[in-house]
């Protein structure tokens, strides 16, 4: 599997996990990010994800390589959804396999944290009332006059 990929379709997490299987690995850790039904108290109806794919693919592969080098895990991968997603759908999957659980957990955490910070991916929320907004760009930009990237969301 590629270290990092985008998909416009629902993911089969069992199939993704199977690609990390290795008789030398005794630990597998995964993170799944799901579409939540609210954001800062506002009811969310659905989400739209958009990416600058060329750069995001490169940067995503770098993050996974960094995790493998840094934590010494055996295999790691990440898939991110793009397009329209409904509440409850899987938006991002990270999986890591390693001889032991500790490095698998740590590498998994590292990958999702870096993905959220570094990849040029944007999320537009459509709210129950009919409004919509680009997360980190609009409501926060007006509230804090520009320093939107400092906010931690989901």
């Amino acid at each position, binding site marked *: 599997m590629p270290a990092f990929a985008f998909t416009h379709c629902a993911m089969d997490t069992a199939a993704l996990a199977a690609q990390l299987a290795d008789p030398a690995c005794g630990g597998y850790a995964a993170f799944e*990010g799901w579409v939540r039904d609210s954001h800062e108290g506002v009811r969310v109806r659905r989400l739209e*994800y*958009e*990416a*600058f794919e*060329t*750069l*995001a693919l*490169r*940067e995503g592969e770098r993050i996974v390589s960094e995790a493998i080098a840094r934590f010494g895990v055996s295999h790691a991968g990440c898939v*991110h959804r793009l397009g329209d997603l409904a509440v409850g759908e899987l*938006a*991002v999957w990270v999986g890591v396999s390693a001889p032991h659980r500790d490095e698998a957990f740590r590498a998994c955490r590292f990958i*999702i944290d870096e*993905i*959220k*910070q*570094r*990849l*040029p*991916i*944007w*999320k*537009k929320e459509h709210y129950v009332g009919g409004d919509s907004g*680009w*997360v*980190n*760009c*609009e409501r*926060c*930009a*007006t509230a804090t006059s*520009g*320093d*939107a*990237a400092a906010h931690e*969301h*989901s």
Partner: protein
Amino acid sequence: MNAVAAARNASAPPLYGLLLAGGRSSRMGQDKAALTYGDGPPQLQRAMALLAAHVLRAYVSVRPDQAGDPLRARFAQIVDTQANVGPIAGLLAAQAQHPQVAWLVVACDLPLLDAPTLAHLVAARATARIATAYRSSHDGLPEPLCAIYEPGSRAPLARYVEAGRNCPRKFLAQSDTLLLAEPNPRALDNINTPTEYSAVMSQVSTPKKISVQYYALLREQAGRREEALATSAATPAELYAELAKRYPFTLSAAALRVAINNEFRDWATPLADGDAVVFIPPVAGG
């Protein structure tokens, strides 16, 4: 030389020109005399044309090993006779060959040097003094490599070098030098590194063709996914400022990152013709 200056200096020593092109260009990594700007000729050729218009005769100053270089061989040359004394070597050799003339010395790494700057220097020339030079707009010191050295400078300059000194700026600072304000404060900016070269390139070259892709909020506010532009913006920071006048962008540049040709880059990176630029709003993956 213009008519007014010629008349005023009728009794003065004739003015010859010396283009210093004997540097080693070590920080640039390539011969600075051969650099081009925009669609213009190599810098040496450009500077010689500028210089020749203000003097009776113009020479290129070269090290002995540069005499056969095709770029330099097409002009009258004066070959250095002393090594390891820096740019002063060129002037010493010129004064030895023609001791009765004044020398308008110009370095060849001044891509923004213009005719008004040379014309003003020649017109304001003080023939009774050791030299006429500009006061640097950066540090207030004399600019020795766009200056006129009168015949009277020859003996003190020779003594200065014999005393083991070779900084022409300090020589002018301690001599009877007329210092002038620069008509164009950028005209004497010299370039020594590839970064300085790119910065000047972007100023003098013709508009660049740049493609811009927009994502997320910027895509909605620009009303398009991409466009091809002709711009004279030197950096992505200047380009964003230009676009922000055209589109109702609400994000300040401080909130964005920028990618050029699919890699994150600094906002001050010089833009080149054909670059693909993406402005990256605050991200929200995961």
